[in-house]
């Protein structure tokens, strides 16, 4: 869990990052922080759900295969709280039916990225999904 220093919390979008592979989570968190997002990091689905109950994220960036609670279960649980929550899925598997397979979890958009991740594409998708003007870090403040 980390924050870009020196920015008022309200200006930044909060991304909940659920990833059980610590090295991957660390690197992704680093990229997100550099993009100016606020990041909440969770090592599995259950930890992510617990963290969301404390502070609801603006976007969920999650792996699918995780201990305790898997990605699909996490998405379903979070959308029970916030039905329009945007979700970006990163997975080594690609479920049959693609992003459509997540339609049953709620109304919000689901984007699917397969690993190894094209991080530039993921960041571009985050910028598209999150409301403009938010999450962008001004070069100076």
């Amino acid at each position, binding site marked *: 869990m980390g924050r870009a220093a020196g920015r008022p919390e309200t200006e930044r979008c909060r991304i909940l990052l659920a990833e059980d592979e610590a090295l991957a989570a660390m690197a992704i968190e680093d990229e997100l922080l550099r993009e100016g997002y606020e990041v909440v990091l969770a090592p599995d689905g259950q930890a992510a759900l617990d963290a969301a109950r404390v502070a609801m994220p603006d976007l969920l960036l999650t792996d699918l295969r995780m201990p305790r609670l898997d990605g699909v279960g996490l998405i379903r649980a979070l959308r029970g709280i916030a039905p329009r929550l945007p979700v970006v899925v990163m997975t080594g598997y690609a479920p049959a039916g*693609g992003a459509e397979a997540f339609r049953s979890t709620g109304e919000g958009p689901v984007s699917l990225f*397969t690993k190894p991740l094209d991080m530039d594409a993921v960041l571009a998708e985050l910028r598209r999904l999150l409301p403009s003007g938010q999450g962008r870090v001004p070069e100076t403040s």
Partner: protein
Amino acid sequence: MFSATVEGKGVILPAGASPGDPALLWLHVLSDLAMGLAYVSVPAVLLLLLLRRRDLDYPWLIGLFAAFILAGGATHLIAALTMIQPSPVAEGLAKSVAAAVSVAFAAALWPVLPRLLALRSPSALAREVEERRAAEERARESEARARESEARMAEFIANLSEALFVLRVTGAGEMLVETVNPAFERMFGVEAEALAGRPVEAVMPAALLRPSLPRWREAASRGQTQEYELNADLPAGRMTWETVLVPVRGEDGRVARLLGSARDVTATRRLQAGLVQSARLATVGTMCAGLAHEASQPLNVAGLWLRRARAAGDDLPATQQAMLVRAVAIVEDQLRRAGELVARIRALAGDEPRQAEVFDATHPVAAALQVAATQYAPEGITLCMEGAVADVTVRGSPARLEQAVLQLLANARDAVLERRRREPGAPARISVALQRSPGRIAIEVRDTGTGIPDPLREAIFDPFFTTKEPGRGTGLGLSIAAGVARAMGGGIEAWNLPEGGACLRMELAEAATPAAPRAAHVAA
């Protein structure tokens, strides 16, 4: 006066007759006359009979009999005359002539007796005729039965779905076609009349002849029944027949004929091959999904950390930074390649993020053809579309189908280039045909390439199978195409073309047109 004459002459009377009795005299004269006339009349009848019926047996005997009667009659007439005018000389002469004829007749009759006894009576003849007629009737009936049975057999053979053929083996070992049945004509597209009596090498379809001839020769030389499965590549596809060859020996003990039957088991074999392929792909699919997942994790971490390393290099001195940028670029490129491989393996698992939809297959096929035509044109390869049909609806992913067709085209291209490398003047042509049969859509890609060596035929759809040198081709193309075909309710098969090159056919299940489900939905 007459009586006076009779009395005057003193007639010699038979013993016991009293002389001078005119009534008795006339009784004798008239009786002798009547007998004599009757005795003359009978030979006349016999002579008439002989003249009219020239076919009678022993005419000479009848003639002799007539002479015998005539001679007897003559003695009676002479006797009548001598009653009135006694003449012992005339009477004696007549009697001697009659005696001679009688003796001759009697003498002739005895030796003929056995033959006369052997003569069949008219009733015996009638019986015999009747028996013959019955026998003929029986023969006709049995012939009719035989004809009927033959007609039934001919009908059976004509309607049999198995192809039958009879080959005649000459003393010189030459094989001539004796006959073939209609199923054979249909199966191999030939006419029985055009084949009859001609050497097998000249008239049998090449696709059948090539694999069969060694078998026929073996059966003819060894005289043993042979059962085997025959595979042949015909223009319509690869066919499989269960074949039985029965040698038939002639009187000299040599194999004079070969009776052959061929049952088309193509559909069964295709189904079996499809099941094997499906089972293999299912196993491979599970394996690939696991492999893709496991491999994607370290690649992912490595890629993400490489980005961090590059970002960290910003603060380094220029020379070190240049080295780092180069190293990062190389590692990134390698990771990208590994990532692409993982993506292909994932596609193989059928585990792709795509939505099934109902669409017209002509569009992705045309799109693939256009892409390939542009790419292959500089290599001098001609691509063309043949026998296109419109509105062929299938269910699946258009993008995946386009990918699959591209894989088939890429495979064809490699085969064409390989052949041209070996034979510089070889044709370089790829044709694509879209066909529709009830419930099925077929996409055929034919090339003028090297063809598929027989032992590899089953393996070409296996993942990671490749005949290309290392570094070229992943060996996944055709198995991806096979996976797409399977996901779309069909399958894929390959065979060599008689004129060289190969044909890969992808079959897909035809889907109901998109309008139909929508209407059903509205109604529901």
